[in-house]
């Protein structure tokens, strides 16, 4: 299962920012209740985001790419995920989640998408799920255009996650099933 999904702007010189984050359920008895629980959740996700940003910048450097790529000129230009850098790393128990987690991430232009997975999760499927979420989020949230649209449209992000990652459950969807999902969502994804 996926514990959380994070959409962030890695920054480069600028500090990284979490643009949207969704956790799938809170493990009971895992710590303080009340507002401290919420605070802890937010801080855990920020730690993940910072680690993703750091890995992303290091990978971009090793590939010889500029650390803050430019956005394309036209907001509706189809984004190719072909060479999108990505990676996977582990975070030890206690830092920041009580149990060990594996983070799978993908970077597209100036944004990064990350899945926080339970250990022993199917990482191949996690990568496929990210590669499906990224263009669809970019499309429905108009992330490539100017403005902070994503912050004001959590319903669009939630709608996508409810179909492609419902309650943190990754789905083995072949291309035809995916097309059916796109039809349900009313999305026109370039193929």
């Amino acid at each position, binding site marked *: *299962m996926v514990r959380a999904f994070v959409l962030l702007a890695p920054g480069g010189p600028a500090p990284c920012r979490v643009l949207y984050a969704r*956790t*799938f*359920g*809170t*493990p*009971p*008895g*895992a710590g303080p*209740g*009340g*507002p401290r*629980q*919420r*605070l802890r959740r*937010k*801080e855990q996700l*920020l730690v993940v985001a910072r680690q993703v940003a*750091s*890995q992303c910048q*290091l*990978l971009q*450097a*090793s590939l*010889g790419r500029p650390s803050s790529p430019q956005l394309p000129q036209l907001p509706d230009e189809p984004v190719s995920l072909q060479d999108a850098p*990505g*990676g*996977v*790393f*582990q975070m*030890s128990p206690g830092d920041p989640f009580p149990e060990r987690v594996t983070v799978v991430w993908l970077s597209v232009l100036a944004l990064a998408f990350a899945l926080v997975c*339970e250990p022993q999760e*199917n*990482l*191949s*499927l996690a*990568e*496929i799920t990210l590669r499906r979420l990224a263009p669809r989020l970019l499309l429905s949230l108009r992330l490539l255009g100017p403005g902070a649209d994503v*912050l*004001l*449209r*959590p*319903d669009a992000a*939630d*709608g996508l996650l*409810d179909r492609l990652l*419902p*309650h*943190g*459950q*990754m*789905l*083995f*969807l*072949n*291309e*035809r*099933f995916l097309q*059916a999902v796109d039809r349900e969502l009313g999305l026109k994804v370039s193929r």
Partner: protein
Amino acid sequence: AGPEAVDGLQRLHLSVAATKYPRKLDGKFVEQLQTVLCSPKSPEQIQVLCAAILREMSPCNDLVLSCDEIQDTKLLSLVSSVLLAQGSRGEVAAVGQRVVQGLERRLPEGQSARFLLPVLANVISLSPGSLTEEQTNVVSKKLADWLRYASIQQGMAQPSGGFFSSPRTKQPAPITEVDGAVATDFFTVLSVAQHYTQDQWLNVQAFSMLRNWLLCYGGPGTSCPEKLWLPHPWKSTPGRLLPPRERLRDKAFAYCQRLVEQSTRRPLKKEDGDLQKACLIEAVTIMDIICKQDSSYVCRAVSCLKILHSRICGDATYARALLPIAQLFLNHSKQAAVDSDAIYKHLFSDIPALLFHNPSLAFEFVQFCKDNSQLFTDSSSIFRQSFPNLFKFLAWNSPALISEFVDLLPFLLDPGTATEIFHLLLDLPCLTAALDIQLRAAALPVSEKAGADPAGKPATCLEAFHHPLYRSMFQYLLRSRAAPEDAPDSLVPLRQLLGSLAGSPRVVQCAETVPVLLELFFRVVAEFADGSLINQLVVLLLQRSDQLYDIPAFKEDVYRVLGSNLAMLCGLRPALVVELSTEILEFSGAVSNIQSKEAIFTHMAWAVGEFLSVSHDKRCTVEQITRFFETLEAVLFEITQLRPQASTPSCAPRAISVLMATLTKLAARSQDLIPRVSMFLSKMRTFVQSPAVTSVYCEEDLEEILIRATELMNLLKMPSVAQFVFTPPVASTRFQKEVNDSLPLALRMVTQLLEPAAGSMPV
């Protein structure tokens, strides 16, 4: 309700989400949000936004939400997302009960169970003990049905009205495989149709949650601490209906076998290829779980996977699937009496060398090693012998894998591998550079590969790759297996050649991981190394200090680690100062070392002062002490000249202090030397005051040197005290060790004893 409401809710969500500190919303308003959420009249977008706000505020005291009355499965899923965010075991259990109830009964018209399964998956992930045995039996039975008996005909398109759609007269087409062939067996996630039916959706959902379900409720003694499972009293007999758990196992295994067959078909759509591989990995993993829960499946699994392995082992795109296959064999092949060595050999000898540059494979491979660390304890095994291959993953993917290797390194180290790994760690950035060249060379067209002129010198690294002068060095660096005897005499030419890549980001990132690993290396080795290995490492350490890849920051950090660990090794085995006196004298006598490798030199000099004494080794003679004394004295003389020439090396003040202290210590043990040292120390006043020197060193450093010189001189005025202070009994108890550590304090005390009037310094 309308666009304004949507806008308002969106802004509200932003203001709640934007801060990590609590935002108080009026209790009545929160109640209203819940009402709107559950109201059937609310538009979906509004419901989603209400749920998002409530989730964002979780945990929420004012929650009165309950899923009991909700009939609409989509809404139930949405409300559950809020309830499951509360972190309350009671809420999770309540959601679990409601969902199972929904799955048990016939759903109202138009509702689909499709939205309930993910909720259930989340429930058992958050709180595995939430369901009773009866409930898990209900679900297991349904899962088995959905996996095995989904429709094998394509669904119909939603009727869009109009003249041209008449669904009743059209015959539904059969489902196909990903390669276009008509399917001849039951429906799976790899079945293709234009439109899907509800039960086909349930098939997909069921498989997607199958692994976690089986782990949780599939067998006795699994990951459900709150549930006590009693073994079922009957065994499965053919023809008899199996109990739910066993029946699910049976259907799940058959599903996985079918996926194995389907996953090597050639897909019409390229993207389906990625899914095939993910399905394959999942199928093998589930088979492994099933075998653990019921060993009667092992034979079937092993024979199926042996065939699969032979089909995919030559295809690099299936490499990641080799890991769960190997894992299954590791877990069960003893039972199946199968020889799986060929599988492990292929995995460890070939895969890392080919695919080190694939970050996902690299990560999963290292995870596999960590999960099976007991394999590495057998020093002759293929696993242990393949450590050079494993380091390729780290060399190429350093930032992502360094913490994994910190966990893995201790398992690779033993007396047989220590020296080879020592060299390997120091050359890790070279390995990165060599791998880069290997990749580029492989990408060249064949014509260019033969272009290098064997007689002349290669002009580029790329040309050097096949050049006879360098080929064997490259081959050694890029070897797949441990080969301590095959080490070439020197890799110096290769390191120099690779110097042009020393600035490449990937090489630099790798270099940054080396000090951490080196420190860990010494810590682990110190626990098992015997005298011979310690001596070997000290000699190698001194040798290699001249032979490091030329990245300045890298060399500085490595010297620092080597220096402190050199002192540690000498502390572990003080006798080595006597046994390796030739090498140590050679190193300590070279003045250039004090400048270029200050950290190592200083610790070496300190160790000589500490341990070159009869109390540490009976073989320590007066001649030896004198020889060391003269060597170090010459060095100190050279670096403390009153009028330093351009050729005089400047060095850290710490080095001067340590040298002075060491000479004093040696003199205390061989008292003929005392006059020489005293005279030297008395000249330090002139040294620190000389104009040429004050321009090189800062005032505090010079004052520190002078103070130290004075203290040491005073100590030598009382030779028997000096001897005691500098040659305490070998510290075998903690108290004695503390005495040693308080040496500077002792020096100061003695100084004060000798000079009650503070500030008066001898001339």
